[in-house]
């Protein structure tokens, strides 16, 4: 018979009231861990940006829109830029790599990105590893072939050898089907980046999709089957750029953004995403405040429950005192009781955290392709449970003091 087992018996005697308190503590602990964990991991995930590239060049407009469109394959394209800009970058000695993107079509909601084969050697996974294929290999630039990202392949059922018709626009609409047929020649292994949600096709193939009109040189140009497309008519949605040095980024930023009027350079990609996330930091604050308030409400509930039970337990305390328990021991017993309730709450809170995190991560993965894992360590996973147990212990202090002051003589009096 230990003091802990006595405490445990008491808790079991009031299982419903304590269960409700454990639930409230679990919700607040789980919510806090989820909010902070998701915030931290999403910052890390979005800070990665587009591994392998430093900047995006696109039409004059919002840098954020450029990044969202070209890197995260969200939002609409701010417009197109002439092919000449791409070729100029490609030949610039300060540029290590320049890869063109042309967008505007989808297959069952998954974006088609027209590009060059270089993308497969430039894109890397979230952990920095090179791209690899689970099936097949890269497309040929002059063929109507496609490479599916892992998520796009899984959710559309596209496998190597499958043939599909693209749909016009970035939102899936069955009436917008192109007659052109593309054959899947490769499926990429998961990268845990937005690239998983993309179907890659040769940029030339995208130019030639039926109904596409090119305006790269200002005048309209409709490609014909087998006919050459002059460079002056070509246009791209964005160019993904890898600089040879950070100084080159500064230089291009000056010439394109501050002095130029034709295009916008989104550089550095991670910095722009961080600025974007910073705009939503208030959401994190609101959620954190909600969770903290819930924790305080749970603590107050715990204190009230303990306090309410004191009246009925004074006799028990008096008996314990008469048997030799010191006032300090009774004090410790009540604090232990409130600590155990909050500790149980944090244990259940880990379950709440896993559920909330997994659900949020799944939605994020589907929406952006960014992958997050609940197993990823974050200091909140230690700090929050410790804080909640401490709060629970503090909630027990006032009831514990009342127990401390219990008079044996007054409370041991005969009751029938």
């Amino acid at each position, binding site marked *: 018979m230990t003091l802990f087992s*006595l405490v445990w018996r008491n808790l079991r005697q009031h299982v419903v009231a304590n269960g409700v308190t454990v639930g409230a503590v679990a919700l607040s602990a789980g919510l806090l861990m989820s909010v902070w964990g998701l915030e931290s991991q999403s910052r890390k995930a979005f800070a990665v940006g587009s591994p392998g590239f430093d900047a995006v060049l696109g039409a004059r407009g919002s840098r954020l829109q450029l990044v969202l469109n070209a890197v995260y394959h969200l939002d609409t394209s701010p417009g197109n830029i002439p092919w000449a800009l791409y070729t100029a970058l490609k030949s610039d000695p300060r540029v290590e790599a320049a890869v063109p993107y042309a967008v505007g079509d989808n297959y069952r909601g998954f974006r088609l990105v027209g590009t060059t084969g270089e993308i497969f050697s430039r894109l890397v996974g979230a952990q920095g590893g090179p791209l690899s294929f689970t099936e097949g290999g890269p497309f040929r630039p002059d063929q109507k072939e496609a490479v599916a990202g892992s998520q796009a392949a899984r959710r559309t059922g596209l496998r190597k050898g499958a043939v599909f018709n693209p749909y016009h626009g970035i939102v899936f609409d069955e009436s917008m089907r192109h007659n052109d047929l593309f054959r899947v020649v490769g499926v990429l292994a998961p990268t845990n980046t937005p690239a998983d949600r993309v179907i890659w096709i040769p940029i030339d193939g995208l130019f030639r999709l039926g109904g596409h009109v090119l305006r790269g040189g200002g005048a309209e140009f409709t490609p014909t089957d087998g006919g050459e497309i002059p460079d002056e008519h070509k246009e791209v949605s964005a160019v993904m750029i890898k600089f040879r040095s950070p100084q080159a980024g500064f230089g291009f930023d000056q010439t394109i953004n501050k002095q130029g009027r034709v295009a916008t350079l989104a550089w550095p990609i991670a910095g722009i995403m961080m600025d974007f996330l910073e705009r939503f930091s208030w959401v994190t604050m609101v959620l954190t405040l909600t969770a903290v308030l819930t924790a305080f409400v749970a603590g107050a509930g715990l204190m009230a429950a303990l306090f309410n039970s004191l009246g009925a337990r004074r006799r028990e305390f008096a*008996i314990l005192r*008469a*048997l*030799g328990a010191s006032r300090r021991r009774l004090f410790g017993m009540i604090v232990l009781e409130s600590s155990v309730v909050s500790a149980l709450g944090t244990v259940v809170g880990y379950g709440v955290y896993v559920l909330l995190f997994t659900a949020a991560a799944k939605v994020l993965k589907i929406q952006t392709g960014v992958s997050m894992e609940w197993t990823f360590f974050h200091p909140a996973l230690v700090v929050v449970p410790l804080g909640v147990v401490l709060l629970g212990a503090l909630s027990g202090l006032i009831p514990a003091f009342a127990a401390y002051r219990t008079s044996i003589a007054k409370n*041991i009096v*005969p009751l*029938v």
Partner: protein
Amino acid sequence: MSLLVLEDVVKGFPSSGGLREVVNIPRFRLNAGHRVGVSGPSGSGKTTFLHLIAGILSPDRGTVWFDGEAFSNLPEPERDRRRGKKMGYVFQTFNLLQGLTALENVLLAQRLGKGVDAPFAKALLDEVGLSDHLRHRPGQLSSGQQQRVALARALANRPALVLADEPTAHLDPSLGKESTLLLDRLCTENGAALLLVSHDSTILNLLPERILLASLSAEPVR
């Protein structure tokens, strides 16, 4: 040798007419192993007398000596510790913890006293005829059985002194008599002194020695 000595012990409580003196004992002595019944009418201060001896209350004046030391002068935590280890207490209403089984109630007293000795706890419950009820909670036991658990608990730490406060008040006469004889026997077997207060002379007559609380007082208790 005296196990317990009260010297000029006075205790009063505030009342509407000022401080009401409840206990005023110039001298009282109890030797080790002696079993004494203390009688007195209701309100005569019997419970206060036991509380002073147990260190639950501190005297306003005077000293309670127990086991060779000025027990009433010790700090409260020390009195608690010594009470747990060296004294057993039997209450009028048994005062068992309802959430614990019979055995656990006895083990708890040991835990708060000299330390858990499960074989001895079981032997005591066997001695009081409850070996088949070790896992029963107080609510599952009759009044007589509950009182016997309380007796076993009082002896759980092999105390030098057992204090019993009207231990038969809630038992029928035959059960009260049986319970008192059992307590007397347990104290004898375990070498414990017994101080049993009761207003019932038939109960007190079962013990070897008897005193009237009023006879200890310097002044008649009002």
